[in-house]
């Protein structure tokens, strides 16, 4: 399967937007309280998020937040539920050629963009062609289209999408908002200005993009003509809410304060430190959801000294008191991680749990064996006069989320006890990318949200070289890992995949290629009078079914 569902969720600019269901897997009423009550139409809701999109252009932006907001404005050809099943949406039915190089979609005939333009095969072609156009500068959607060669308009209601190579995951890609559809009229009129959002963002979705005030908010209003919701939705026809305001409150304290003082009804995320306070408030509820994909981890560069020595890597792996650190930084809200991928990701290997507990004695022994036996005046280990020092750069503050810098300080302190110096220079983002993905740093830290274990290939397959856009910042070349992750893609047999992915996860930890730290968790605060919050498989909020009770 091509690497086309990858989402740089955790890389900070792509801030998280996991909204609410009680379980990450259910298309159920998120805010379950009073679920039995009859939905009422009307009212407005304010939703506070921590990230402001740089661009609102779904075809260009790589950001989660863009997709999360625009999900309410743009529809997709198909809808994927949290079990991975596909349902009709703008397409009533579809088929794929045997070689998986051509997909044919039959479109609904009653769909109109909010500017009145009809949604038809031509609109699909115009949008897909726009995505791959160089001037769109697509940073994500184009990768979803992968080896796209073109779209053929068979008739007004039928399109064929062509690829130069098999794309098994295209349906999944097509279900994301990034492959949503702008009104061709809007594309013509606004061209490159689509990134500004506002009136330019004309879609077919349940909400219209009314206005955007930079630094402050986005306002969406109900699309009264909407009647083409996917069948999985709780109701049909227009959305309940008259108005949906999305406020950008990047400061944790401010966002939480806005929720507790009733200025917003939904706030995402709630920082772990405040979860207790919010929970204690009878007017509020907290919904936590584990995210799928790769856990937040220290990715160790195996080509740089001293981490090229597996004994040092193992010392790092066992020398950090992750339990305590994660618990104190995240107040027990986030779970510590035991493997590269999160428990909600398919083929998660539960066997890894509790196999590599904190063991400073073992870590010290490992370092002794590696020859780091000397000590300098600052208490750090040395080998032939050289200090045991590892560089782990910091991104600019604005890209740092979830207090990872604080967690980093705890890790730094733990490793210092062990005699390892962790240096954390602050780099500007250009330098950061050049050095980290150029393999010049000791440690990189990131996570990767993805509803598929193929993330393991992205992380550990040697072909996934960061210098060419991959994510294997371990720079480790292991024949087994390559073989297993490649094979897992060519089969749909669940047992085979289970076996391959389990071996991959175990080997990654065995080789100490990374130090998994915590499972990313969406924590959303919701006012108790908000009902019917829905999430899609990306765990993003869908406000289509949401209504406000009395």
């Amino acid at each position: 399967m091509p690497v086309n569902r990858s989402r740089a969720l955790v890389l900070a600019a792509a801030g998280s937007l996991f909204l609410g269901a009680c379980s990450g897997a259910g298309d159920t009423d998120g805010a379950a309280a009073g679920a039995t009550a009859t939905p009422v139409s009307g009212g407005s809701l304010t939703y506070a998020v921590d990230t402001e999109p740089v661009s609102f252009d779904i075809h260009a932006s790589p950001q989660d937040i863009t997709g999360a907001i625009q999900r309410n404005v743009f529809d997709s050809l198909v809808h994927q539920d949290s079990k991975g099943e596909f349902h009709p949406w703008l397409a009533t039915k579809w088929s794929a050629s045997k070689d998986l190089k051509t997909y044919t979609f039959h479109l609904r005939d009653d769909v109109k963009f909010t500017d009145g333009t009809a949604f038809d095969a031509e609109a699909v072609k115009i949008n897909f062609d726009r995505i791959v156009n160089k001037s769109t500068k697509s940073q994500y959607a184009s990768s979803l289209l992968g080896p796209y060669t073109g779209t053929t308009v068979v008739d007004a209601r039928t399109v064929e999408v062509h690829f130069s190579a098999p794309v098994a995951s295209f349906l999944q890609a097509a279900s994301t908002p990034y492959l949503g559809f702008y009104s061709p009229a809007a594309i013509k009129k606004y061209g490159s200005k689509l990134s500004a959002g506002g009136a330019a963002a004309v879609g077919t979705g349940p909400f219209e993009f009314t206005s955007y005030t930079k630094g402050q908010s986005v306002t969406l209003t109900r699309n009264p003509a909407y009647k083409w919701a996917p069948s999985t939705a709780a109701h049909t026809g227009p959305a309940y809410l008259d108005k949906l305001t999305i406020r950008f409150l990047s400061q944790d304290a401010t966002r939480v304060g806005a929720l507790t003082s009733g200025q917003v009804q939904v706030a995402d995320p709630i920082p772990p430190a405040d979860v207790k306070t919010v929970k204690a408030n009878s007017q509020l509820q907290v919904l936590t959801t584990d995210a799928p994909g790769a856990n937040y981890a220290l990715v160790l560069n195996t080509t740089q000294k001293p981490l090229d020595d597996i004994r040092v890597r193992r010392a790092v792996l066992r020398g950090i008191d992750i339990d305590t650190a994660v618990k104190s930084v995240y107040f027990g809200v986030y779970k510590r991680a035991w493997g590269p991928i999160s428990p909600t990701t398919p083929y998660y290997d539960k066997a890894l749990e509790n196999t590599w507990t904190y063991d400073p004695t073992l870590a010290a022994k490992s370092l002794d064996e590696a020859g780091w036996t000397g000590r300098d005046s600052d208490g750090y280990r040395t080998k032939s006069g050289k200090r045991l020092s590892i560089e782990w750069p910091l991104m600019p503050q604005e890209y740092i989320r979830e207090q990872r810098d604080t967690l980093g300080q705890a890790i730094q302190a733990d490793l210092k006890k062990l005699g390892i110096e962790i240096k954390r220079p602050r780099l500007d983002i250009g330098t950061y990318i050049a050095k980290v993905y150029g393999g010049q740093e000791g440690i990189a830290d990131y996570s990767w949200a993805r509803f598929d274990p193929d993330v393991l290939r992205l992380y550990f397959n040697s072909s996934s070289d960061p210098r060419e856009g991959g994510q294997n910042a371990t720079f480790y070349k292991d024949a087994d890992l390559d073989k297993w992750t490649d094979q897992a893609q060519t089969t749909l047999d669940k047992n085979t995949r289970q076996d391959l992915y389990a071996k991959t996860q175990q080997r990654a930890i065995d080789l100490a290629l990374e130090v998994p730290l915590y499972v990313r968790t969406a924590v959303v605060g919701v006012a108790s009078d908000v009902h019917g919050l829905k999430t899609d498989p990306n765990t993003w909020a869908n406000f289509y079914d949401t209504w406000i009770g009395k």
Partner: protein
Amino acid sequence: MTTLTVAAPPRRRPRLRTAVRPAHVATAAVLTLIVLAAAFPGLFTSASPVDTDPVHALTAPGAAHWFGTDQLGRDIFARVLYGTRTSVWLGLGSTVLAVAAGSVLGLAAALGGRWTDQALMRLVDALLALPPILLGLLAVTILGPGTLNVMIAIAVAFSPGYARLVRAEALVVRTSGYVESATVLGLRRPLLVVRHIVPNALGPLLVLATVGFGSSLIAASGLSFLGLGPQPPSPEWGTMLSEGRNFLATAWWIGVFPGAAITFTALSVNVVGRRAQARFTRRTDG
């Protein structure tokens, strides 16, 4: 002149002195403490500013931890104390740099030729057109974050102001009665510059620099607050304040104490600066 001048002094000056004196004792005490804390933070606490103790994270201020602990269980009192050196050093270093750069620029403009003056002053004008924080921000953007870079950035931000002042003072001094008197005496120009112009032009600058130190400290901490200053875990007040911002509702002490440290340091320096200014004005007024 009439008795007006006789009547005025006894009414004003002694009262001013007595009114301000207790404040000065307090200021001197605070400043001494700050200097001691900057030089020997270990004198005041045995706790480490960087060692974590997650078991005691977010402890409220009390006997064990006077200022409480932060999220990782580090002692805030120790961090504030150890942060003194970095923060004060930031303020002091940037002021010294700014004053030095400003003096050189200003004196060169005032005493150099007309074109030197024009060129330098247009540069200074362009720099003055930008608020110090913006200049500092730009400078840090170029230099990258870090203690030394913030110091340089703040110096860059404040030096145009000093340059302006030095130039103005030097021009006033250059046409002053005593420089004319020295000219009439036949003093050589280099001697004139060194003996009369430079010291007198720099006098007000040094006074201003005292007050400027407070501003530099606040500005430098501001850059740290924005995440551009010294990098964690090294304690610095602005950085700590920024960390504490997320705990306002749950653990106010993380942000409040570093903020108070900045304020009190700036305040005591400003009290001294104001006094120096008042004294200086009185001296030059005769």
